[in-house]
């Protein structure tokens, strides 16, 4: 079947098997390998992308379900050479070590800040609680997101990428 997905503002049209998962579409068809795969069961969240601005686990989403929608991956966070404050925050506050869960964490953070520009520590912990990081113990991720809240101007990814 044919799907047409707008990824980071770029239309991607491909013939695919109906069963193809969105994470594989993004990685193998669109060639955007910043979105990672970690568990198959929606537990780890390393595959999180934004679909129409909402964080979604792309390992349990069919690419076909996303046809006609806007997908944002980590590659779409930096706009015109300017990092998203969330990306800057993760660097400043040591919010990543191996970097494998990082793209999903940052996209969830972006969605959170779009909804709630000044989240409390607990609200941040709630927001990222569907995702696993094995390296950081989460404190520095929480600090990174607070850094973005305090230092960043909210950026509308959809507006910037269209």
């Amino acid at each position: 079947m044919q799907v047409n997905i707008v990824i980071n503002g770029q239309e991607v049209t491909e013939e695919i098997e109906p069963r193809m998962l969105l994470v594989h579409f993004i990685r193998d068809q669109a060639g955007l390998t910043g979105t990672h795969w970690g568990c198959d069961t929606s537990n780890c969240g390393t595959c999180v992308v934004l679909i129409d601005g909402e964080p979604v686990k792309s390992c349990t989403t069919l690419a076909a379900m996303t046809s006609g929608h806007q997908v944002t991956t980590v590659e779409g966070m930096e706009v015109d050479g300017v990092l998203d404050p969330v990306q800057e925050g993760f660097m400043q506050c040591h919010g990543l070590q191996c970097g494998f869960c990082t793209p999903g964490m940052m996209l969830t953070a972006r969605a959170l800040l779009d909804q709630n520009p000044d989240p409390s520590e607990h609200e941040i912990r709630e927001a990222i609680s569907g995702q696993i990081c094995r390296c950081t113990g989460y404190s520095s991720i929480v600090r990174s997101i607070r850094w973005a809240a305090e230092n960043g101007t909210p950026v509308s990814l959809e507006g910037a990428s269209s």
Partner: protein
Amino acid sequence: MTAVEETPAEEGERPIGYGRLLRKEDPRLIRGMGNFVDDIQLPGMLHLAILRSPVAHARIANIDTSAAQAHPKVVAVITGADLAEQGLAWMPTLSNDVQSVLATDKVRFQHQEVAFVVAEDRYSARDALELIDVEYDMLPVISDVRSALDADAPVIRDDLEGKADNHIFDWETGDEASTNEVFERADVVVSEEIIYPRVHPAPMETCACVAQVERVSGQLTLWSTTQAPHAHRTVYALVAGLPEHKIRIIAPDIGGGFGGKVPIYPGYVCAIVASLVIGKPVKWTEDRTENLVSTGFARDYIMKGEIAATSDGKILAVRTNVLADHGAFNGVASPIKYPAGFFGVFTGSYDLEAAHCKMTAVYTNKAPGGVAYACSFRITEAVYLIERIVDCLAFELDMDPAELRLKNFIKPEQFPYETKTGWVYDSGDYEPAMRKAMDMAGYAQLREEQAEKRERGELMGIGISFFTEAVGAGPRKDMDILGLGMADGCELRVHPTGKAIVRLSVKTQGQGHETTFAQIVAEELGIPPEDIDVIHGDTDNTPFGLGTYGSRSTPVSGAAAALVARKVRDKAQIIASGMLEASVADLEWVKGSFHVAGDPSKSVTIQDIAMRAHGAGDLPDGIEGGLEAQICYNPTNLTYPFGAYICVVDIDPATAEVKVRRFIAVDDCGTQINPMIIEGQVHGGLADGVGMALMEMIAFDEDGNCLSASLMDYLIPTSLECPDWETGHTVTPSPHHPIGAKGIGESATVGSPPAVVNAVVDALKPFGIRHADMPLTPSRVWETMQGNHTAPI
């Protein structure tokens, strides 16, 4: 980003230069531009999937691959019999055992590798697995390790000639007679069976590789999730008979390792064989279930611990008897003379009169492995044993566990301290670390709060753990893996314009080597860290060394980096003497330049010297051009980081749910290189500890079925189970490391589980509870509260 900005250190950190430098790794990773193994796409690349056994112990009666072969997108289907024809059905483990690549005679654990399919895409490869028909003749299963040595137990390893039981080894350390003598005269003896269940490192990135064999040259390039690329290269040369100079291992970005990416797994060998046979690049990426059920597990020790003391709390001796479950193949990755890893440091941080350990290791019908999950070669088990049994003693003596520890610490003047099991602790100053943790926690106030809460029937617990680690394996006369000495090389090349490249034998999996090793060289050579690039994870482009695990990168390779920089500096000094027309002895080094003693105006920078070293002018007699050096560092001893941890928990009396309210960690890893990265290493390990203590366990049923085969069943802490960690430090440099650093990668994983368990048990003191085994899930805590605590295995 301002990766080069020098951030002032916080008071007391005493780091080497540049301190809290932002990481060089981050700009690519936060843009999604890392390069992990599964990201690699090569022209014509095929995909490999592995068929695994659904049962734990069975003879393979027949395998029919015809339907899979007929699948239009399948290129090859390979079974154990096919590999046996090439002599590749078995491979050595890192413990001198053998493990099957694909089963030939029988399967010995559930999910063991039976066959593989190579297909044009990853979905078709998986589809074809369903088309392979295997007939199994079931055999009795050893799932309970306690029955492995029963006289009527089925023999799992009948592939080993003459093997008539499931025994692997007996191991002993310390002195039995003197320990028994101390136990006989002690006022108090406390015994407890303490279990460290099987857990799994479960890095976010599973194992994967891409194998590419060039048909004409025979060159194998393997992109692989490995923590030890050079050691792997040698093992592949031995397994596959490929000449070692024709093997190149590339470990690109690695999504966490924690020890799970030290062993060689059958999947890697299968991909190499497939590429060799088919002549195209082949990718294998395991799924999460495969990762949890077949790759390196950790722990699985049943420890009978005993502690002897005087009635006023002077600890005299410790002894233990351990039953170790190694699974179906002995795949432990430990220095070969240390079959139980460094478990011998179970005497902990205390000055004892005697100690003794006896251990028996056995085969069971479970996945092989044994050393993974940031354990520092079994020190997790050792620290858990001593820190749990010390708390049991405090319970019996009705003594405060902090006071008991303070009373028994090895004193600073006793270092270097040789333990009763023969380990020479290099340096330590334990009491200040313990006092600092108690101050940070507000220990006295916490005890008051606990007393008040107990009056009201609320369950609050305070748990303490004080650990000493032994890391940085190791002196090559004592430590090797498959005959490869545990030394590490480092190469440093300063270019004409004064920029430098440092090449490491170790490999980061998130620890930040690209940053910290640049900092070490920057400190020694005065070249700013932004001018130093770190090359690692490529056997063709780095010197030989044994890799990153057991917290050995800083103690071994970090030492190599400092010393290679000093070697370059020594040469630079000779060149500078020519440039300044002064004798070498008259030159003084001030970070980044040499000047003539007494005349600072006559000076040359390291950059000036680098240009001269490569330039047209004459160099002093006997000095070759260029400014580079290489060394191979052989550590003289291990390093011994330590720390004091305090955990505060609240237990809901109605649901038995444990909530970690606070966690205070004071670590001493000697000289600090980058305090920001150190804090990150500690944070991650603390989360591991909460996970193991409260939720993580790889469980099996009586038929050997793995019950923890997904992240729905193998629970890992999320942001909601972890508190905001409170960290602190003391600094006691290692006397034998060139910059005094000790390593920090695994300290918190080693030190934190007993703190959490001790806190939970402390909370349950009103129920008369002295011990409860991990994982302390609500159901297990509830049963314990009802007096029905059962062993997890």
